[in-house]
Structures are given as C-alpha cells and as structure tokens.
C-alpha cells in the first residue's frame, strides 16, 4: 500500500503522571473510513486529542500527509486541513448557525465558501432552516450536525469525529452515519471515527481498531471485527437489538 495519510507510531500521552496512551500504532490511508472503538476511559478521545496536539505526545511520532505534526500547535495542525469535530460538539452557542459554519471556514479559501456551505446544507438539510438561529438553541442532533458541518467547512483531507452518536436518538444516529458515508463516497473525505456505538461504527468503517487501556489490541476490516467473538462479547452485547 502507498504511504498512509496519517500514521501514528509508538505514541504515549500522559495527563500529569497518569499514562493514558501506552504506545499506540495506527494508520489511516487516503479515502478510508477508520474507526476506533473501546470502552469508557480506554484512551480513544485522548488519542484523537493527541493527534490534534492537545495534549502533545510525550513519545512517538505522528505524521500527517508526509509531515511530522507531533510538536505542532493545534491551530497549525488544523491549517494542514486535518479537521476535528471534538467531543461534546463545542459549537459556539451565542453565534448563529451560519456564523458557526463560517468560523469553520477560517482556514479555507474564501472563494470556496458558497460552494462548501451548499454542500454542508445538502448533507444536513435541517441546518438550512436554522441558519439564522443561535447555535445554543439547536437540539442535540442538530448541534452534532452543526459540529460536523463546521469541521467540513475547512475542506478537510482528514476528518476526526469524536463520538458523533453520543446522546442521540437511534434515528438521528443513522442520519449522521449516513452523512459520514456520503461524505466519504462522494467527496472523498477520509474519516477517522471514534465511537462507543461499536456496531454502527464497524458496519460503516472500512477498517477498525479496538483499544483497551491505552493500547491497540485488535485491528482489521470493519465487518471482520464485527464477527470476532472477543469484540462481540465486549462491545456488541445487546447492541443489535437497537
């Protein structure tokens, strides 16, 4: 295979004296959807935040598009068009939906703004009726759509999504995952998806990684992982009933 778009090699991260990541290796190739699943506190979000440079890795190397980004500050990583929809959505509550989307386009070419906006509204038609509304007045699902849409406005090569299904109704989860699939298929956006909803995530993803206690324990094709007994017992109990 060609050189990966993002490669993580031997990354360790500490919060003070607590070690959250214990040497993580992970590759994401152009055009893929890769998911990372694991239990609460396994270090999934920490890995995502470490890729974005907040906190920075203590050891190891993170390469993005052939460039070492391990020690770059967060905003410069974002300028390399590695976009992130962080955990907890973090939209700007007092700014309108349109302003939120515009903030997402900070690092993008202004000439592309109209076209990108149209595309985001096509993916998330519900945002269209809410453009003039303040972000804080949106429902949880709409806020998640806005968070993803805002990240998309920077025309990312790699989109990092941290638990987009968190706290959403099953119907909305399906809508969001469908939008991610479309983005990947039609726009060629590479997606790295951190999820607790292992069933949906592994069904959608080309490849998946399983993280336990700050280490990657399993990896493979998404659908193959779904069938693995250790994944089934640990993460999929009862999930299919949804």
């Amino acid at each position, binding site marked *: 295979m060609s050189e990966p778009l993002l490669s993580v090699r031997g990354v360790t991260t500490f919060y003070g004296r607590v070690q959250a990541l214990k040497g993580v290796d992970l590759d994401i190739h152009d055009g893929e959807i890769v998911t990372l699943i694991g239990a609460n506190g396994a270090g999934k979000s920490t890995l995502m935040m470490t890729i974005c440079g*907040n906190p920075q890795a203590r050891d190891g190397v993170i390469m993005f598009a052939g460039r070492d980004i391990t020690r770059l500050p967060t905003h410069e990583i974002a300028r390399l068009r590695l*976009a992130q929809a962080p955990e907890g959505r973090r939209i*700007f509550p*007092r*700014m309108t939906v*349109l302003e939120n989307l515009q*903030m997402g386009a*900070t690092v993008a070419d202004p000439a592309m703004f*109209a076209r990108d906006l149209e595309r985001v509204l096509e993916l998330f038609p519900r945002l269209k009726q809410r453009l*003039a509304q303040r972000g804080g007045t949106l429902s949880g699902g709409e806020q998640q759509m806005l968070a993803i849409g805002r990240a998309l406005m920077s025309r990312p090569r790699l989109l990092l999504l941290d638990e987009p299904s968190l706290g959403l109704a099953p119907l909305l989860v399906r809508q969001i995952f469908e939008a991610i699939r479309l983005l990947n298929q039609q726009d060629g956006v590479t997606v790295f998806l951190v999820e607790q909803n292992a069933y949906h995530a592994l069904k959608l993803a080309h490849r998946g990684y399983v993280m336990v206690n700050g280490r990657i324990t399993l990896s493979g094709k998404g659908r193959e992982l779904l069938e693995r007994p250790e994944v089934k017992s640990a993460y999929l109990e009862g999930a299919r009933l949804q």
Partner: protein
Amino acid sequence: MSASGDRAGEQPRAPRGPAGPIPAARAIDRLASSVREAAITAALAFGLFLPLIGFETVTNMRNEVTLKTRWPLLFAITAAVAIGRLAYMLTLGPALGRRRLRAAPAPSAWRARAGGLFVPFAIALVVLYPALVIVLNGSSGALKWIDNFGIQILIYVMLGWGLNIVVGLAGLLDLGYVAFYAVGAYSYALLAKTFGLAFWILLPLAGILASFWGILLGFPVLRLRGDYLAIVTLAFGEIIRIVLVNWVDLTNGYAGIGGIPRPTFFGIPFNAGDDGFAAVFGLEFSPLHRTIFLYYIILALALLTAYVTVRLRRLPVGRAWEALREDEIACRSLGINTTNTKLTAFAMGAMFAGFAGSFFAARQGFISPESFTFIESATILSIVVLGGMGSQIGVAIAAVIMIGGTEIMRELDFLKDIFGQTFDPTQYRMLFFGLAMVVIMVVRPRGLISRREPSVFLRERKTISADLVKEGRG
C-alpha cells in the same frame, strides 16, 4: 409570535387555578402572600438598618464619642421599604415573574424599525447637543452642561466601547482597564511637556503606547481565563497606578502633572490673545469655544471607536474574538491562533483607552494617579455589563445613565426645599449608583441590550458573490 409568547406567559398561572376558580378568592390569596412578603422584607430592612441608621455616633464638645439613637428615621425607612415591597408585589412583581419564565422574547417588527432609527437619531442628537444646550441655557450656563455632561459622558462611552472589545467580544474579564487609560494620559502629558509635541501627533502615539502595554499584559495572562484573569488584570491596574505614585522623578507622584498643553485648532490656540481662536475668527473670547472643540474631539474619537468595532466584528479577527468568548478549544481546533486573537483584543481595547487617556489629559490640563484608581475600572466594567456585554448601543445607554445620572445628582437643588438646607444630594450619588445597578440587573439580568446582532447574513453573502461575478466579467 406574540400569540405563542402570551401563551407561554399564561402557563405559570395555570397551576394556581385549583386554588380558587372565583377571582375574588384568588385576589385575597395574592394579597395575603404579598403582605407576608412585605413583612419579611420589613424585618430584613429593620435588621439591616438598625446598626446603619438606628444608631449614630456623635462627637460632643469635649471630643467624646457618644451614641445617639434615631428611632423615628429607622421606623420611617423600614415602613417605606415594606410599603414599597407590597406595592411591587401587587403590581410589577407577577408581571416580571412571568417574563422571566418566557423564553427569549421575539423582537417585534416595530421594535426592529425603532432600533434601525435609533442610531442615526442618537448620533444627530449628540452632534447637535452643544447647539441645543446653548439655545436652552445661554452661553454662560452651557459650559457646565457641555463639559460636565457631554464630554464626561462621552469619555466613558468611549472607554466602555473600548473595554467592550476585550470583555464583551473576546470574553476576557479585565479589571485593570484603567491602567491603559493612565498610560495614554501620562504619555500625552509627559511627551507634550517634555518635547512640546502637538496633541494630534501624540494622540496616535499614546494609543500605540497603550496598546503596547496591552500586549505586555496579554503575554503573561494568555493561559488564564475568568476569575484568574480578572485577578491578574486587577493587579496590573494597581501596579501601573502605584508606579505612577512612586516614580516621582518621572511622574511627580501624588502631586501630579499640571500645565499640560491644551489641544489647538489646527495650530490656533484657544486663548484671549491676538492670535487666539476668538481673535482669528473675529469672535468675542469665550471659554466655551475650547469646550465645544473638545466636545467634538471626544465625539469623533468615540464614534471612531464604535465604527472600528463594528467593522472589526465582520472581519475574521472580530469573529475570532467572539468565537474565543464562546469556546477556546473549538477555536483552536478550527485553526484559529488563540494567542494572537487574545493579544489583538487586548491591544485594540488598550489603544482606545490610550486615546481616551490622552484626550483626558489634554482636557483637564492636570493629571494625577488619583484619577486612575480601581473604582474607575469598576465603573467602566459596570457600564459594559449593565449595557449588555457586546452591545454597543447598550453600553452607550448605560454610560449615559450611570455617568449622567451621578452628575445630575449635583443639580438637584430643589431637593433642599423638601429635605431642608442641610440636605446634600451629591452625598447620595453612590447610593443611587448602586440602586440603579440593582434595578437594571433585576429587570434585565443580561444587560440593557442582551440581543446579539449576527455579524453575517446570507443575503449579504449573495450580494458579495454577485459583485464578484460582475467584476470577473468586466
């Protein structure tokens, strides 16, 4: 819109329904609860005012402190509080309670229209203000109204707008804003006295120096937010003031700097001499000329502040300020350099304070550290908070109420006819200042104008793109 609002307003009443379908019973219910409230308030007021008003220490002829009681006054005040609470409960209280439960009030059409007219009308009023005052008061009485009211209020409007950039837009709580005002004032005073430079050269220089100090403050506090930032900025304000007090060689300490050169009208001084403003323009000399000139300078400076802020809000840096106020982590993940964003906010806010400071020095002709105490920072901050953080119109209105209100207390001589000749209304200024704050915060907890105007609309974007197309074809 209004229908849904009314329905929302009715809701809290509904649960009370079962208490009595008969209106009279409900009225008695309400009266009883109001009386109970009033009694509690009276007890509270009595307890609070007993040491404050009930007892008075008096020094007698032999220089001994004796305790005097003032029971009638205490009971009068307690009764007034109780009656006031009762009246509030029976009239305003329920209405206000309903309003609080309502979601964000939808702006009605007439309000939007009135809002659109408000700004041009207000600008026309302040531009014509000196003429109006002269017509109403004659030129001798006008001086006070232009100087004490017009100029004084406009200085605070400008400071409020400057601080609004830091606190209202960027969300960085700054309790030491007066430091930059002081830097501007001392920059002008020292440079004008030492090098004899003109006001118009020193004005931008004072702004640059103040914004330099703004950046200097910004660096150490980059990682701080909220309470921690507030404490450090508070300390910074005090450091500047204490340096001004103690660096006697440079600043002359508490004695201050006097004889600061006044601004000239394109090189023509405002004095009674042969080459003075009055003589050159063939007018009779009057101190009013300079005052009016100063009024228009501060008006222009204040409007410049407002204009720059309005423009900046629509530029990437202004939007980044607002986004920073909302969520710093999200900002960084979107590629915004939060360090630079914070520093520009501090620098811009400080620059306008520097302008205002150099104007202040030029207007007073004398400055001392007394003018730059913490209470000034607190006043400016309360103007921003009361006006509604981020709202320029709100800040301007709050400055008029707070500064104009305290100034007008000096004018209420007719109160002496009511309360006797010893009554001095100016002594109650701070009391009314506090009362006004409490009232505004009760009635409008998010400031006078809490609505935030979006800085971008879809319609605008369309017109811009149409322009681009046209240019491309031509």
